[in-house]
């Protein structure tokens, strides 16, 4: 489990990119939910933390595929594969993250194993 930051540091409607390997995007929706997915779009190398958050979905900032933050599923191409969702817990006002164990769906040409 990774301690991310105090919940108070992530306003509703905002997102944060965590420089993990692979990177994770963590969102605080307008409805007050905190949800985490892989940050890199499964189509090309775009950061979903930079995307357009609406309800419980984030739209890729480059080519508009939408990912469901609860399931990781994508609505329509160009992205075709889901992102992983990661478990978020809030304890004593702090956000904690548990990274999913399955393999991520990295886009072609982006090597998620090779960290910075």
């Amino acid at each position, binding site marked *: 489990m990774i301690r991310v930051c105090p919940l108070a540091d992530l306003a509703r409607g905002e997102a944060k990119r965590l420089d993990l390997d692979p990177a994770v995007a963590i969102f605080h929706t307008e409805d007050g939910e905190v949800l985490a997915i892989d940050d890199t779009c499964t189509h090309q190398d775009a*950061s979903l933390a*930079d995307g357009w958050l609406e309800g419980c979905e984030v739209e890729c*900032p480059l080519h508009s595929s939408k990912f469901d933050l609860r399931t990781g599923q*994508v609505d*329509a191409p160009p992205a075709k594969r889901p992102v992983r969702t990661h478990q978020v817990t809030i304890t004593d006002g702090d956000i904690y993250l548990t990274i999913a164990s399955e393999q991520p769906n990295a886009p*072609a*040409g982006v090597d998620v194993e090779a960290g910075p």
Partner: protein
Amino acid sequence: MKAVAVVGGSLAGLSAARALRKQGFDGSVTIVSDETRPPYDRPPLSKSFLAGATTEGEIALLGDGEDLGAAWRTGVTATRLDPRGRRVELSDGTALAVDGLVIATGARPRRPWPRMPAGVDVLRTLDDALGLRARLVPGARLVVVGAGFIGAEVASTAHGLGVEVTVIEAAPTPLSGPLGIDIGAVVSALHADHGVRLLSGVGVAGLVGAAQIEGVELTDGRTVAADAVLLGVGVQPNVEWLTGSGLPLTGGVQCDSYGATGIPNVVAVGDCATWYDRELGAYHRIEHWTAARERGAIAVSSLLSGGTVRVEGRPPYFWSDQYGCTLQVAGHTSGAESATVEEGSVQDRDFLAVYRRGGEPVAVVALGHSRSFMRWRKQLARRAVSVPPSALSR
């Protein structure tokens, strides 16, 4: 409404068909497409697909196992629409009786010469891309006519394949229309950065070569030798088949700001359509991907509600990938009075510029800076929504 036809089965048509189902339409949907291939995404045709780095499967527009519950009529062209919008005639002699119609027939490249030697291509379809790719062998000489987005992208991809590229542009500054002179000049300087020759302010007088292309003759008397020529001189909407329907077709199928045409139960979307833009106070045809994708749902809301539900769209957005950089543009740059660089520097090919009119931001253009770009894009959308429709309606 029981039977809806979608004419044109590419991005705009598919988005509309998806929206029909998502918005609960449970009648029949027939998609008419004059292409025989399953729908594919066009942007990669000048980028990764042209470079041979992505496959046809990877650029398919239908998701894996996606079922739209639609009947497909592929390889047939819609040839006529009756003035009531109830009957669509097809090139195979049959006709569709419909009570709803989505026009999504897109656009096709301009061909300035009716007869052209072999080796001269336009780029719109997957087969166009395969044909062009076969010519892009290392050492070949490619002349790109037109330094717009498609021309610039093909130049960039061909350069990456080891092709010797010359780009010819009639305007003194490429992309000065869409981006303004200063920013257009810098983005087009990407060609020079990569050793691609750009001849601007000069037109093409003619093509040299009888059976096979040999060169391009310029209006200043020069001739540039060529093994292949790509024409990127704009597109025109595919609307001729609607002549006789009574729909106004100047500049595309004319629609209100929600995709509705003058015929009830007929909407139009994507590159073939020119929607009334309230911010510009004029009809405006967008020939970019995001509009084709996201306006399908808006047009379908208008169709299914008989025009009573009006979903506001977002400001236009598009991207272009050239020489490893992604250019992003949101809003309307035309009509802006100023463009100021707010982040980075244009000389470094790494910047974010905001366009303003009357002090208000109307567009944002960026090379890099994707995070701030999205903030500006959202701000433009908030501003668009905050302008009361009553103050703008025609």
